[in-house]
């Protein structure tokens, strides 16, 4: 009897908790907008885009231990997939329900494309090749305006369609009960749904034979292969999965901005995403989410408070906020490496 009641009771508690989380996530954008202003809601949306990226890279670097310094290339592939399939560039305007899977698979394909020739490389060597790959993609995008104009070159693609559901565009504004809902809110909800889905997929992969095979390869590739793991397939799958999530993130980024150009996909972006993974806690899903939040939001806070604080103390702005941001960023990374080498929120620290 009791054993039958208990699971039901637990289930009820779970549903209760789930309900609260959903309400919190629904209300969050309004809280942010009310207390910090619209610009912070925009920053929050960008953060979620980076969370998706970091979660994708975490599969490659965190789970499978394949150091990838060109990850932003898949973000670029996703972004340009959307830009080409939903803009006046070729006058193609597909629905986002079509484009999201397309960018998922195209980016995944590029992941395999990068993975296949680098299967025998490890560590530093792999890092160098992936770095090169990232640059190649960016340079391609930069130069693919002739002979046939595909990417519009350095100018980028403009007037990209927003997400459309039926005839409803995410750029519309609607007012419900006197509260105005704008594109920032709509993209927030879309991104939150994507993030939750990706987290669930990552968790399920982690607790499956595939996830275990990834970690085994990270720990000792020779031993993993000797235990019957097809390291080639498993590594390619890691590259493909990681890249696909990057691609989805890129696609949403592209429609959210309404504009893409190659300079959004420079090397420092790859490094940033890698920092999120490493700083948060390699291989730990929630750690990585935390890492993304810290690395996007903290610099923004510093940027907004650095000048006023300096003015109130010294009367003048001694160090301009932009360079202070990079100094503190560097300092933070050094401190984490010294005192928390496995990341801020690692599995073992829990």
């Amino acid at each position: 009897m009791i054993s039958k009641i208990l699971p039901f009771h637990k289930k009820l508690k779970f549903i209760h908790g789930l309900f609260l989380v959903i309400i919190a996530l629904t209300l969050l954008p309004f809280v942010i907008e009310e207390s910090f202003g619209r610009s912070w809601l925009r920053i929050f949306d960008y953060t979620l885009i980076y969370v998706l990226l970091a979660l994708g890279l975490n599969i490659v670097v965190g789970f499978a231990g394949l150091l990838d310094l060109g990850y932003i290339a898949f973000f670029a592939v996703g972004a340009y997939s959307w830009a080409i399939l939903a803009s006046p560039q070729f006058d193609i305007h597909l629905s986002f329900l079509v484009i999201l899977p397309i960018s998922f698979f195209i980016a995944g394909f590029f992941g395999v494309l990068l993975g296949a020739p680098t299967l025998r490389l490890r560590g530093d060597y792999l890092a160098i090749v992936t770095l090169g790959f990232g640059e190649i993609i960016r340079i391609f995008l930069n130069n693919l305006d002739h002979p046939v104009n595909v990417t519009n070159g350095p100018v980028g693609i403009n007037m990209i369609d927003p997400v459309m559901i039926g005839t409803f565009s995410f750029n519309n504004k609607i007012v419900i009960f006197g509260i105005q809902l704008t594109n920032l809110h709509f993209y927030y909800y879309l991104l939150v749904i994507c993030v939750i889905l990706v987290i669930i997929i990552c968790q399920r992969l982690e607790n499956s034979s595939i996830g275990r095979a990834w970690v085994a390869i990270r720990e000792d590739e020779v031993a993993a292969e000797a235990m019957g793991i097809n390291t080639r397939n498993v590594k390619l799958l890691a590259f493909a999965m990681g890249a696909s999530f990057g691609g989805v993130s890129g696609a949403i980024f592209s429609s959210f901005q309404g504009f893409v150009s190659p300079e959004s996909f420079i090397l420092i972006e790859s490094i940033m995403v890698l920092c999120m993974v490493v700083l948060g806690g390699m291989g730990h899903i929630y750690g990585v989410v935390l890492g993304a939040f810290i690395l996007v939001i903290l610099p923004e806070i510093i940027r907004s408070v650095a000048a006023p604080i300096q003015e109130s103390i010294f009367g003048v702005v001694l160090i301009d906020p932009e360079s202070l941001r990079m100094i503190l960023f560097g300092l933070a990374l050094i401190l984490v490496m010294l005192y928390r080498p496995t990341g801020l929120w690692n599995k073992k620290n829990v």
Partner: protein
Amino acid sequence: MSKNILEIKNLSIMFGGIVALDDVNMVTKKGTIHGLIGPNGAGKTTLFNIMTGIYKPTSGNVYLNEKEITGFTPNKIANLGIARTFQNIRLFNSMSVLENVLVAMHNSMNVNLIDIIFKTKKFKKEEKSKREKAEKLLEYTGLVKYINNSASSLPYGDQRRLEIARALATNPSLLVIDEPAAGMNHKETSDLKNFLDKINSDGTSILIIEHDVKLIMNLCSFVTVLDFGKIICEGVPEMVKQNKQVIEAYLGA
């Protein structure tokens, strides 16, 4: 005559100009414990690396259960039934003892990506049966008390034991073990002997490299001696012990 589980024919391998193995012929009978001894650098581990697919031989063939496996990839060979341990312990250190064993059950995987992402009944069922199998195996190998500890936290002797348990998880017909007693004390060595005897009597053939001659002589029914890449002697332990060449090259007077 019982069947050959492993047969090596005219096997040679060269690294640059160095002949590491020179025309080696060796047979392991099914159901036996076969010892491989010889001085350092004789080519014992090289031979292991060839049969498990890590190196490709320059010439010659390897047969498992009378089927050729020469030049197959390590994962394919593992799936065909040779499981190994390493001279320097190579566990998946950050993983738990249970996970180490589960990883080795990868080859029995029937679920695909879709099953995993949607957590289908099939996936749950397989995961559950794998866990049960792994727990049974850990009980069998006496490691069940560490089940959720990380592999690196185990005492040395038990790490060796876990490596063997992990190899057994691939469900091998031949277990090849590289210097399992290295660094072990008396008690650990005698435990190891009993452990290997038990595994063997439960139906797994064993091929073992070891420097502990006493262990080899007590454990094995057949011994092969390698020196400078060549087999200098093979036979039952009593005979090998008395062989002049072996005494000269390895055992000492």
